[in-house]
């Protein structure tokens, strides 16, 4: 048992650190923070990463992966988060790409993977429906065969960044007989196809990132089906486990907790720094200690995966614990902000207000409520662990 870094690991760490320091510049970050320039800035950043060859650490080398071992992946992720670098948009790179390179045809691989690597296409995920949330397999969006095409009718909801997307990967129903998990097909749909409408959903953080996507007689060529008809659930399930390991966000939480602490040093409570308040310190360490454990839980899962195992039900635990801690940090940041948590964006400059993080704290907190809901709600994750690990 050994978790120390080798000399090569240290060299790699310094290389990653230097790259982020040089290329993730404040000008770019400023454009990312602005809704009007968000998309172009993200695309630009992801292309810088692509040029460096680091855009897809999780992919097999033959398709454009980095070939890093699990220690290097851990170092990369830790350094990325520590530098406050935005993670890549996951829908193309970490969600649909593994399904395409695992189950797709040669033609699909050649068509989609290079464009995903270069962020030439922006992807979104069409899973949840108005009537199908935690019970995802009950989905009703229908695809009927018409010659060499499918005709898709139905609606997807909570679709993040659909307003920017060039493509959507969808689970659709092609068969209503038998178990509901059977009869689901995995389709790749061009968002420019006639019959697709994107309706914005504004969330409690006053932002628009979620959407409803409505399909009315949308014609999709059969060549855009991944794998076999009616077998899409199997492909989607393998992808869900991938989604959940990333969801823990341990490295980002470590950074965020450090930021909360920094803010607390500036707040004066009863003549003393809030950071020196023993009750506040306990709130911090309650979270930090769980994070220290979760970081190693993630490493243990990664080590299992590196040894040839699959991320199974353990990824559900990472999802539950990771999102609970994300929210706990968001709560703490709100408490540090105190009454400034109520400040709305763009009402007054930070200088006029005399406070810098209240609005951001509230936005993170409000949108952060989604974390225990998406990717399979935490209650669903507990059901998965109960079944797969406890044998219930």
């Amino acid at each position, binding site marked *: *048992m*050994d*978790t*120390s*870094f080798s000399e090569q690991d240290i060299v790699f760490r310094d290389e990653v650190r230097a790259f982020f320091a040089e290329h993730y510049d404040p000008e770019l970050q400023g454009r990312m923070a602005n809704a009007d320039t968000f998309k172009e800035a993200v695309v630009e950043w992801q292309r810088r990463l692509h040029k460096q060859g680091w855009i897809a650490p999780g992919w097999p080398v033959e398709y454009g992966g980095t070939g890093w071992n*699990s*220690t290097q992946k*851990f170092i990369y992720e830790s350094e990325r988060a520590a530098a406050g670098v935005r993670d890549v948009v996951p829908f193309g790179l970490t969600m649909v790409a593994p399904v395409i390179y695992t189950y797709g045809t040669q033609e699909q691989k050649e068509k989609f993977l290079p464009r995903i690597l270069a962020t030439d296409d922006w992807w979104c995920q069409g899973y949840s429906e108005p009537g199908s949330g935690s019970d995802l397999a009950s989905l009703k969006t229908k695809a009927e065969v018409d010659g060499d095409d499918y005709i898709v009718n139905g609606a997807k909801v909570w679709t993040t960044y659909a307003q920017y997307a060039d493509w959507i990967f969808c689970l659709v129903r092609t068969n209503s007989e038998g178990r509901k998990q059977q009869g689901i097909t995995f389709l790749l749909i061009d968002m420019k196809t006639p019959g697709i409408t994107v309706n914005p959903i504004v969330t409690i953080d006053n932002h628009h990132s979620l959407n409803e996507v409505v399909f009315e007689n949308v014609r999709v060529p059969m060549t855009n089906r991944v794998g076999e008809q009616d077998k899409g659930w199997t492909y989607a399930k393998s992808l869900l486990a991938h989604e959940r390991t990333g969801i823990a966000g341990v490295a980002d939480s470590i950074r965020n907790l450090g930021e909360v*602490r920094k803010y607390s040093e500036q707040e004066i409570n009863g003549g003393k720094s809030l*950071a*020196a308040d*023993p009750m506040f*310190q*306990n709130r*911090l*360490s309650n979270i*930090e*200690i*769980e994070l*220290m*454990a*979760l*970081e*190693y*839980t993630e*490493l*243990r899962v990664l*080590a299992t995966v590196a040894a040839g195992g699959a991320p199974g039900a*353990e990824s559900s*635990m990472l999802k*539950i*614990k990771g999102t609970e801690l994300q929210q706990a940090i968001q709560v703490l940041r709100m408490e540090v902000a105190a009454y400034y948590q109520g400040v709305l964006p763009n009402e007054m400059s930070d200088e006029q207000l005399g406070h810098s993080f209240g609005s951001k704290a509230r936005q993170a907190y409000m949108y952060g409520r989604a974390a225990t809901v998406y990717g399979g709600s935490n*209650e669903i994750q*507990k*059901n998965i*662990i*109960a079944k797969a*690990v*406890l*044998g*219930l």
Partner: protein
Amino acid sequence: MNFDFTEEQVMLRDSVERYMREDYDFEKRQAIADSEQGMSAEHWQTFAELGWLSIPFAEQHGGFGGSAVDTMLVMEEFGKGLLLEPYLATVLLFGAALQKSGNQSAQEAIIPGIIDGSCLGALAYLERQSRFELADVKTSAAATADGFVLNGEKVVVFNGANADQLIVSARTSGEQSDENGISLFLVSAEAAGVQRSSFRQMDGQRVANIVFDNVGVAPDALLGELDGGFEILTAVAMEANLALAAEALGIMGQLNAKTLEYTKTREQFGVPISSFQALQHRMVDTFMDYEQTRSLLYRAVCALTNGEEDAVTAIHALKVMIDRAGSRIYGEAIQLHGGMGLTDELDIGHYAKRLMMIITTFGNGDFHQAKFNAIRYN
């Protein structure tokens, strides 16, 4: 980066696991707990023959030269079997203090006896008023022409009644709570002026209060530097906390496994109670508590082995986790066992009681959280 154990470590773990399962079942364990000595000399001798008593000691003294990982593996299995024999007291407290003192002649005289099972030891570090502070020492050692004279009382000394040799913390200078001015002394348990009162604890352990009434010891009874005992005590306590955490993890795993098994067999309303989602989610919570504790234990063991600066921080964090997660696990185990969880006949309560004692040994969660906060946030 890997979490694999060496072939040797796997063999060691498996041999302890098999022994506890086959030769140390709950019924046999309870019989030992009820015996006069509260431990079995026969088992102890077997441990010596199997080499378990030699694990952490240096090879030059006939030891195995084992690592914190080796001790962790052994202690986790001891936890599963609710071991009563004084492995912690003799090997990991008394033995470790001796090893860390750097006192060659005392090591050569005593360690072979620990390894062959003939010498039982105890570390007398607690006093009535000291609670969790190792530096709070009133027992005095006054220098005389012939060495030192000890006066005072040590309390709740693990294995105090059965020990042949004691290591005693005593004040040689400074005020009651000063970290400087504490010295460690090797004292024969049979020395004139040593009075021991033995009593049983709820986890079946035998402890003793020990009065030192003008106990004279030779100059070479001083272990380590004069006034420099606190550093040794702290180092021993930190490593003991790791070992105790491993023992606790073994217990937590047993409590979870036994609770899960019980809910699968216990039927109410015509179905096994494990089919109720309210109970399933609680067992998922305790499963996660267990896994998080294991992760933190690995983190602390790796940090200590690598000599990392934050090893102490990780051990404080671990002890907080043992308290929080451990308390939830034994609480849920008793609750989910219903009325059966309250019976003395079932092992559940006995696991709970040992876990409670581990939590309070060398400081509970609040104590360690304050230490953690002081390092991280002040």
